[in-house]
């Protein structure tokens, strides 16, 4: 479904990603793991084209999306739940969701999709007139996921959705993610927490200082000492 090959990217003179390749199959849930600063966020932002890059090719459902603008990537069917949630703080929950359904094709489905999101996270329905900036961390994360779902994506990219959440909310978020996956959504999950991630994905990539150090099935990785080593960064 997603096929990324030979990606090099960075910030100005700082090269962060070197020759990164990654594939995600239809219906899969894939993990992108790695220590802090390994380049995970940079990589998902490259897929979303938030960070411009020249070298490498990114294909989605067979279509080359390497040169698209960020909003075009979203229109294509890739939706990102960014690290730190990045909501529109002075808009209500409802308005944030409406913004999620901004792209033309999604707009006609908004009433239905919003029902679906409220079904997934009933808490958002209770809070729909509240400003996003006043929500708790867990609620904000639900809203960020809900907003990303509003565009009707076929690939959902979650960048550290558990960051800074209480265990109760982490569970809610991961249950919702599992439910979405069961319904057929393809997911790329970025996680720093190794144990959490390996339990919830089928396959994963471990990034180490901007390169793919290890990749394979999650079950095989659980007991692989090399994985833990990549994490410690030595």
């Amino acid at each position, binding site marked *: 479904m997603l096929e990324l090959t030979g990606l090099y990217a960075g910030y100005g003179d700082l090269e962060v990603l070197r020759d990164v390749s990654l594939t995600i199959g239809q219906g899969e849930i894939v993990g992108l793991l790695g220590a802090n600063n390994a380049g995970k966020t940079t990589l998902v932002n490259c897929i*979303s084209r*938030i960070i411009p890059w020249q070298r490498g090719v990114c294909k989605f459902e067979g279509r080359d999306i390497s040169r698209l*603008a*960020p*909003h075009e990537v*979203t*229109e294509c069917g890739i*939706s*990102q739940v*960014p690290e730190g949630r*990045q*909501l*529109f*703080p*002075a*808009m209500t929950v409802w*308005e944030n969701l*409406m*913004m*999620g359904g*901004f*792209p033309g094709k*999604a*707009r006609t489905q908004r009433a239905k999709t919003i029902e679906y999101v409220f079904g997934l996270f009933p808490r958002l329905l209770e809070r729909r007139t509240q400003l996003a900036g006043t929500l708790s961390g867990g609620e904000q994360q639900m809203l960020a996921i809900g*907003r*990303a779902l*509003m*565009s009707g994506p076929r690939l959902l990219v979650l960048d550290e959705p558990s960051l800074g959440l209480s265990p109760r909310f982490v569970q809610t978020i991961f249950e919702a993610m599992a439910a979405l996956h069961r319904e057929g959504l393809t997911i790329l999950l970025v996680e720093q927490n190794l144990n959490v991630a390996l339990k919830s994905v089928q396959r994963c990539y471990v990034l180490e200082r901007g390169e793919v150090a290890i990749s394979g099935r999650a079950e095989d990785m659980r007991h692989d000492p090399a994985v833990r080593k990549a994490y410690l960064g030595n």
Partner: protein
Amino acid sequence: MDILFQAIIQGVLIGSTYGLIALSMGLIYSVSGITNFAHGDLMVLCMFGAYALFAILGLDPYISILLVAPTIAIATFVLYKYLIQPISSQQLMVIQLTLGLMFVIQNLLLMAYGGNFQRVPSVLDGDVMIVGDFAVIQSSLFVSFVTTWALAAVLFWLLGRTDFGRSVRAVHQNARAAALVGVNVRRTQLIVVSLSAVILAVSASLLVSGRAIHPSEGLHYTVVALMPFVLGGMSNLLSILISGTIIGVAETVGNVYLNGPLGFAVPYIVFILILIFRPQGLFGARS
């Protein structure tokens, strides 16, 4: 007492149009973080557009706005797209550019029209209305006031209730997130900048009837717009509009009670006093 009453009414009427100029400044700022120091000069350019259309075609400023507004909107669009957007990440260069633009416009107008004051006659010239028992108000001021608030109401509805408006607020609140949900950020900025130019052109045609215009007045209007822009919190559009009214009242009341240059200084003094006591702006909640 009657004089004060008259001055306040006049200030409210004229100030709303100052607010409108500031509001169009605030619109640009809210989606792109750019403060356009050539804003007043662009407005004076619109005023001279109205003058030229009167001189050549004999058009009334309330009619020529139909030509001036789209022209300035297109010019601003081109300017923003080809000159400003490519350097938008470098704040200082953008400031430099708008300052340069200010001198370009001013000098072009001086070359074309010389350093004299000009007038653009309108149907409302000399027309007055009586407010209350004593206040005599120029009808053109009343038209300015009504048009300003009508335009503001449409704008607030647009920003508050429509998908386009939400996308504008999204770009303002978090441009990166806006891009991620599928907003074409650059296009949104361009539309807003053009919209702001239309509002500016309307302010110009409202102000041009009943007052003399001069090519080098641009900076004055920029400053008059900057005050409510800052007092109103830079992107809170309603408070910008209200702050414009306050500046307008300070101006007219100052002119009634203090003669000459001192009277002109009153709005600035009011502005500075407000900022001393409320550094976050008139309606800001936090610093």
